[in-house]
């Protein structure tokens, strides 16, 4: 565990970047430091590998003060990823990744074998091995940066706004990739970002820092969204924290209805029976994939006009998606009903905004009860 023990960083001109900060960073989890610019999050990160020395307080790694070992030994035991990847433009991708193993005295061959292994691990095609950084896209460069940090298999990974310079689509890919790698490797990751969405998505624990380098709140993301410590944290989370909090509730418990779902080749009797069930019917193709909504009157057995169907919006998958996705599907749907599909995209049922609303209330009650039980203990 990394323990930051009432650390202060004061610069010679009197600026206080970090003010008596204490944090216990859990092992094998992602801890995100988030806050507005000037909140000292990067300074805090850089104090962990001694790129910045604290003015007061100490940082302990597994109970030992980090100043007890030579600074370069400490740094080689911590992977370091920075904003623009910071690749060495004169070295090939493979040699960039092999940097720390080479510093640790591995043979060239062993270091390169390891580097090739890591390219695969971070989702880089090994055909890029002999390329130079300028030949790669921003997203690929950042993957190389992550691979380079992981090369010597350090237990700790320090990441300083690693994904903030790439476009949103690439960023989402990199975030998903990081979560996947973390599932496999279980590193102790300290991740700095100014993006609260990124913090909530990636963090096991999130530390919100305020300007002046003071800790505002240190909590798991769901708790952060449901119970912000003060108005600063609340403002920083943004206006839609209630909606975003729904990401932490599974859509699996929603009660789906199958009665309003009809196949495109249903006969007249089925259509007539289903018309009783709901004001709108969802028409699927013969494989069960959604085509669109229609009023029952507009459907003629055997002659469904696909062009006249209303758009069905974005379907959600109850098995993997959250209530947020379900609600989003219902809000976007012209009928106010969300479409639930299985892994293959086949309709498993539909659900109304009203039912989703009831599920949200139930989830909130459950959380409140759980935390009351926890508090009582």
């Amino acid at each position, binding site marked *: 565990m990394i323990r930051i023990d009432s650390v202060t960083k004061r610069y010679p001109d009197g600026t206080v970047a970090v003010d008596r900060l204490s944090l216990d960073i859990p092992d094998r989890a992602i801890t995100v430091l988030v806050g507005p610019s000037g909140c000292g999050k990067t300074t805090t990160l850089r104090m962990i590998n001694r*790129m910045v020395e604290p003015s007061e307080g100490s940082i302990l790694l597994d109970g030992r003060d980090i100043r007890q070992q030579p600074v370069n030994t400490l740094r080689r035991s911590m992977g370091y990823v920075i904003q623009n990847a910071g690749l060495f*433009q004169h*070295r*090939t991708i493979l040699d960039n990744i092999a940097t720390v193993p080479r*510093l640790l005295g591995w043979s060239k061959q062993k270091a390169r074998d390891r580097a090739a292994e890591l390219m695969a691990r971070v989702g880089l095609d090994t055909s890029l091995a002999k390329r130079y950084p*300028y030949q790669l896209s921003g997203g690929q460069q950042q993957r190389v940066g992550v691979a380079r*940090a992981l090369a010597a298999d350090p237990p700790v990974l320090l990441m300083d706004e690693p994904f903030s310079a790439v476009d949103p689509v690439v960023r989402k890919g990199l975030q998903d990739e990081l979560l996947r790698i973390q599932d496999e490797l279980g590193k102790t990751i300290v991740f700095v970002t100014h993006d609260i969405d990124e913090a909530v998505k990636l963090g096991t624990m999130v530390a919100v820092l305020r300007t002046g380098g003071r800790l505002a709140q240190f909590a798991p993301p769901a708790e952060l969204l449901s119970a912000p410590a003060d108005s600063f944290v609340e403002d920083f989370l943004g206006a839609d924290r209630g909606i975003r909090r729904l990401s932490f509730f599974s859509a699996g418990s929603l009660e789906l209805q199958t009665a309003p779902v009809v196949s495109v080749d249903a006969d007249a009797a089925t259509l007539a029976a289903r018309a009783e069930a709901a004001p709108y019917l969802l028409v699927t193709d013969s494989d069960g994939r959604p085509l669109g909504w229609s009023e029952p009157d507009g459907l003629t057995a055997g002659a469904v006009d696909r062009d006249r169907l209303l758009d069905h919006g974005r379907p959600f998958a109850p098995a993997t998606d959250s209530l947020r996705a379900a609600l989003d599907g219902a809000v976007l749907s012209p009928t106010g009903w969300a479409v639930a599909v299985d892994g293959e995209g086949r309709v498993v049922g539909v659900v109304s905004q009203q039912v989703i609303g009831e599920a949200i209330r139930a989830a909130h009650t459950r959380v409140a009860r759980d935390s009351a039980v926890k508090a009582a203990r």
Partner: protein
Amino acid sequence: MNVLHFAQAFFSDGSHWHGRDGIPTRLSEHVKYSLEALLFAAAVGLPVGLVTGHYGRGGNALALIATAGRALPSFGLLVLMFIWIGFGMVPVMIPLVVLAVPPILVTTYEAVRSVDPSPVDAARGMGMPESRVLLQVELPVALPLVLSGLRTAAIQIVSTATIAAYVSLGGLGRYIIDGLYQRDYEKVVGGAGLVAGLALATLVVFWAAARLAVSPGVRRSG
């Protein structure tokens, strides 16, 4: 008779191709003076430029030295040194080195200082010692500029080394000075042509060195 005829006459005269005053001897003397001066200048300018560039300090002091160095007239310095020290290689080397240090020093300093800071930060954060940060991260990226500083210095040395002949030493300056004294304009033009040719050859050598020494990753992204 025009310049081309002078040159043709000079180079077609067989007696100019051997002996103590022959082209091969004078050319190799000239190359030797130039190389020695360049090595001395690089031995001073490169380390100082690399270290000051790495720490990003001392830029003002360097600019001052460079301006002073450039303001000193090579020929005046030569005569001064000759009177002071006497006959020999040293009075020739001093003005050449003084001429060559500023471009090497200033370009090396600027080259290292302007290296993108993020790879340097990454290198330090990965536990790379400072010496390796300088030699393995900053220098390879700064190399094209560093080489251009050396090239400028080398060309200035090659064209200025002709002054060695003023103090009775050899080199291609011999032809120019003797030719002027003897009113032998074939010799003057031939000597000047050889100096110009040597300067061009220096350019080619540096171009080839850059091709070999600069990583393709730097060459194409720079």
